[in-house]
């Protein structure tokens, strides 16, 4: 029976710390994007849309990691994987062509403005999802 060996929840123990960090990033990235888009969207539409996208990804990752249902783990894998891709792609683009990004996003320069936490966080997230994965029946 699957119930006899429930997979380790992603939101307990050290995972609770991870969820807390994701929650804070979800809040700050979304709030930042909201202010940017509401206040001065025309200045740097690409950067502000990326901020909003990052905010949504952090929200989905938080929900996925905090949840206990099977779909939550799938959602967490997808969101954290997308997050790692996002920070690597946006980070590389900002290094190569800084002029295309007149205003910073969370992922600019691999998250330099946030102490590089946006670069480290998805790596820790993927490691944690791997570590807590359900053991094969």
């Amino acid at each position, binding site marked *: 029976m699957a119930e006899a060996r429930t997979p380790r929840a992603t939101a307990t123990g050290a995972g609770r710390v991870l969820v807390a960090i994701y*929650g804070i990033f979800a809040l700050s990235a979304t*709030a930042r994007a909201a202010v940017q888009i509401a206040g001065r969207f025309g200045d740097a539409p690409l950067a502000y849309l990326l901020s909003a996208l990052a905010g949504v990804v952090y929200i989905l990752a938080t929900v996925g990691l905090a949840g206990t249902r099977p779909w939550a783990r799938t959602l967490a894998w997808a969101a954290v994987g997308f997050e790692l891709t996002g920070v690597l792609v946006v980070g590389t683009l900002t290094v190569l062509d800084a002029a295309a990004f007149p205003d910073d996003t969370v992922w600019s320069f691999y998250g330099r403005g946030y102490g590089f936490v946006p670069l480290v966080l998805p790596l820790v997230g993927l490691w944690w999802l791997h570590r807590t994965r359900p053991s094969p029946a």
Partner: protein
Amino acid sequence: MYDALALATLVATGALALFGLVLAALNRAPGRELKIAVGVVVALLAAQAVLGVVRAFGVTLPEQSTFLIYLAVSVCVLPIATQFAYAEPTRWGGVVVAVGAIATLVAVLRLQGLWVPSG
């Protein structure tokens, strides 16, 4: 902003982060003492936020709405993080409080940077 109060909140949130991490290092679940410490820090932050809102309407800031959002965030993060932390009766609860305290510390620092009054 108001240098003494800002300094007090920075020191208090830093000390709270350290407190949470020390509890975790000692392998202790968050208890009553940590909750009291959080209460004191949140009271300081709330005082700063009230003063900040009052002062913000008397001057012109380059990013008024951002400033007000940071004020709200600086007060709200710790109570939510603490609620979340106490559902985890292990050493990791203390780390969650520390994470909340560090995020609050960053928000207070950002508030300092945003306080560029004119007029």
